[in-house]
């Protein structure tokens, strides 16, 4: 199809469409950059010759601990990702390799709540968390997400597709259950891990409602909640400050993505997900 696109007489149109969508998609970011570097008085107008300033960033940096928020989010995403991988891999492995009476029923139970995300149950989960004393902790934010039905489901599907012969060969070489999992199953399922990992990272990088409810302090607030607490509009929206805060808090990820996007996209694509 690649060739098809190129030789096609509508190649120019394709390029145009691609770029047109790209401009649309990137426009909020462009606006953020534009506004953040200009004085507040220009927040809502476009004038090519208006003065540039770094003052918004200075004010934001002095005003709220965005570095801390970033670290919190980073810790939250890491904890969630690592635990999800371990917990869901174990469960999926059990469903595939150690079926027992009733394990199918258990899997159905997992399936039923595939789309029931913990925030749907936030009233109850808040109570549970307060009972076990994990309110306002990063572990507490992550806790309800650690066992993910979606993760278990995905990993199980992938593990099931792995030929039995591979497992048996490893067993013949004397590998035990854990070794089979780590040496045979996990490497083959790498694409699934990457795809699921991307979903988790994006989910928790963006997650807002649940952390808003359970966090109280600067030490635990992730970026999303930090930004909301910062951008409170009691006295009207001050876009230059909000965009500066947004850029400051996403800058590390943005820069990392710009630097490593080739590697990221390529390794992701090589892996591919089925």
């Amino acid at each position, binding site marked *: *199809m690649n060739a098809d696109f190129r030789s096609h007489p509508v190649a120019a149109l394709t390029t145009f469409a691609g770029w047109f969508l790209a401009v649309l998609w990137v426009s909020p970011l462009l606006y953020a950059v534009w506004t953040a570097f200009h004085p507040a008085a220009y927040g809502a107008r476009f004038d090519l010759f208006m003065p540039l300033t770094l003052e918004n960033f200075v004010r934001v940096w002095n005003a709220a601990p965005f570095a801390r928020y970033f670290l919190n989010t980073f810790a939250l995403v890491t904890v969630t990702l690592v635990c999800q991988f371990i917990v869901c891999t174990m469960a999926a492995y059990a469903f595939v390799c150690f079926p027992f009476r009733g394990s199918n029923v258990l899997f159905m139970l997992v399936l039923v*709540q595939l789309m029931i995300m913990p925030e749907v149950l936030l009233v109850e989960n808040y109570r549970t968390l307060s009972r076990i004393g994990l309110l306002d902790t990063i572990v507490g934010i992550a806790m309800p997400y650690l066992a993910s039905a979606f993760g278990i489901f995905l990993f199980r599907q992938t593990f099931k597709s792995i030929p039995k012969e591979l497992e048996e060969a490893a067993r013949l070489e004397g590998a035990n259950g854990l070794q089979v999992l780590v040496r045979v199953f996990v490497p083959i399922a790498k694409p699934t891990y990457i795809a699921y990992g991307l979903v988790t990272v994006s989910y928790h990088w963006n997650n807002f409602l649940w952390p808003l409810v359970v966090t109280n302090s600067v030490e635990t607030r992730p970026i999303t909640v930090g930004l909301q607490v910062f951008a409170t509009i009691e006295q009207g929206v001050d876009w230059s400050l909000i965009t500066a805060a947004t850029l400051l808090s996403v800058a590390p990820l943005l820069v990392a993505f710009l630097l490593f996007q080739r590697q990221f996209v390529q390794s992701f694509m090589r892996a591919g*997900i089925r």
Partner: protein
Amino acid sequence: MKASRNALYGGLLLLPAAVLLWTFTYQPIVTTFIDSLYSTPRGRRPAAFIGFDQYETMFADPVFWKAMLNNFIYAFATIPLSMAMALAMALLVNSKLRGQAAVRMAYFTPTILPMVAVANIWLFFYAPDYGLVDRVLQLFGLGGQNFLGQPDTALAALIVITIWKEAGFFMIFYLAALQQISPTLMEAASLEGASFWQTLRRVTIPLLMPTTLFISVNAVIGAFRLVDHIVVMTKGAPDNATTLLLFYIYQVGFGYWDTGYAAALTMVLLVILAVIALVQFGYVDKRIHYR
């Protein structure tokens, strides 16, 4: 012998997931159901058993029905449109486009910008008269639109934001899957004289089915849980035109402190989500070879 060994290992491996799922999903579902049969305890009045009164209240509550309707419109618009946009964007980036890397990067930006942050930016885009969208419309003589302040455009305005946010993310998965399709297959198709659309329909889309399923699960989850922009931008206004189910639950539970009623609403959302999961996997999974 093997059976008991399996039960032991299987049980042990499942234990962490089982405990966590029980604590944060099943047990709350059970308690939510029980709570929904009681009146809300107020500081001075304890909860009383009232049977299905909360559900009766709910079926008579116009805001509940409004939220249901809105949520279905929201789901039926955002799920297919964001998936279609994602596929189109992936196809564009997969073709030999000039400046491919930059375009790809642009499509991916919404994933990096948290919704709560961009919600305020979109607030500016949608501002009447001097907002970006309105300025563009003014060029065509269609200015003066108050997108978020009119009931007939407010929900659509939020749907656009959601599509913007989700399509860029889903694009990555489609792109990865497209790269896996063997070029010989495509060459064979074009040698047989298949047009671009025929190839797309007969070869590409069927081969992308597993990815489509993966994305659709995420899209459905998003359609019922992504309410961040409503919290920041509209709070369900005007006149509940943008109230979605989860936002309504949040409002009733943490704004009105009516936990009993919030529990009844939650039960409805739970049933909807469970039914979708069963249909999606009972029906679709049989037809797709999910490798």
